């Protein structure tokens, strides 16, 4: 009887230590999930800003010449149309993935939502990078032209249009950087202890 009571006391003494380690791991994962949610919201804002800046980039010059177009808008260049559609898709995806992010906060040990978010975030990164890279190539060309191929720098005429479009590309790359960071956070939080 004396042995059994001492064993009981020992087991009662050991149990809280085991639970608190798991709680600590869960607390870490919860912190990572909250950071992920905040980053997701800021990436969504950035992607939305990129799409909005590209979509409202119309410019009409007050003069015109015989050979040059006096109106510039994003749908004159198919690459910019692709950019607008892609960034809208990325912003929409980020909005729809907010509930999944909240689920990872509530249940920090579940791996399913995290893996799903990681896979979908990877696809969003690729889409956003493709849109940003393609638009950056066209914007670079518009700023500098290319003497070897006789492509003129249209930014010399359309200043406002160029500024808006360049700003949209920058916002897209900001969204890409935030998304890459989110992927790394998800991978880090997937570790099993």
């Amino acid at each position: 009887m004396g042995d059994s009571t001492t064993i009981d006391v020992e087991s009662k003494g050991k149990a809280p230590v085991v639970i608190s380690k798991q709680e600590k791991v869960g607390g870490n994962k919860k912190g990572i999930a909250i950071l992920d949610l905040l980053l997701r919201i800021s990436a969504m804002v950035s992607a939305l800003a990129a799409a909005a800046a590209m979509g409202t980039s119309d410019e009409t010059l007050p003069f015109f010449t015989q050979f040059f177009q006096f109106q510039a808008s994003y749908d004159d260049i198919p690459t910019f149309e692709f950019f607008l559609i892609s960034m809208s898709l990325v912003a929409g995806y980020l909005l729809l993935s907010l509930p999944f992010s909240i689920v990872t906060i509530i249940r920090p040990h579940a791996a399913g939502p995290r893996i799903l978010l990681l896979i979908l975030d990877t696809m969003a990164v690729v889409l956003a990078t493709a849109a940003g890279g393609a638009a950056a190539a066209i914007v670079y060309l518009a700023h500098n032209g290319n003497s070897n191929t006789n492509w003129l720098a249209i930014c010399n005429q359309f200043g406002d249009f160029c500024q808006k479009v360049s700003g949209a590309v920058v916002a897209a790359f900001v969204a890409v950087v935030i998304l890459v960071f989110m992927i790394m956070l998800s991978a880090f939080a997937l570790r099993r202890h």
Partner: protein
Amino acid sequence: MMKAGELEIGEAKSSTPISGVNRGISILDFILRILAFVGTLASAIAMGTTNETLPFFTQFTRFRAEYDDLPTFTFFVVANAGVSAYLVLSLPLSIFHIVRSSAQKSRNILIFFDTAMLALLTAGASAAAAIVYLAHKGNTKANWFAICQQFNSFCERTSGSLIGSFVGAFALILLIFLSAVALSRR
């Protein structure tokens, strides 16, 4: 003590199927890495060796086309070369994962670098794709002339080299998935 012994045997039984699947994932990871390396290297070489000189010339257009006439293509070659160098250097780490399938920190490092390289590769490939599209179609609104009408073999070479780059990007995406799945299984 008997109960502790039974628990140990039980843990050993349940962990071998998981580490077997992890080993399969690591082998697939190695194969995909080699595939991505071949794709990106072929792209860099195909784009870097473009050089077309037309037999005639006119007053206003250039009669020679090289990849470094367009800065975007230079960026494409550099990005592809960088990513293929990274893939070669990450092969030992991949082999280490085949041998020791339960490594976690090194898999995290691999995911981090894979994601960064994926972003670089996709940016280069999409920028080159935008320029290739412009070279094929031109743009009447901006008065940009479609140079593919003159430089046929240059255009074909550059368009073909995009394929290798996109194959490499797709393989990198799969590599990130595999590493994430292997991380979450223990």
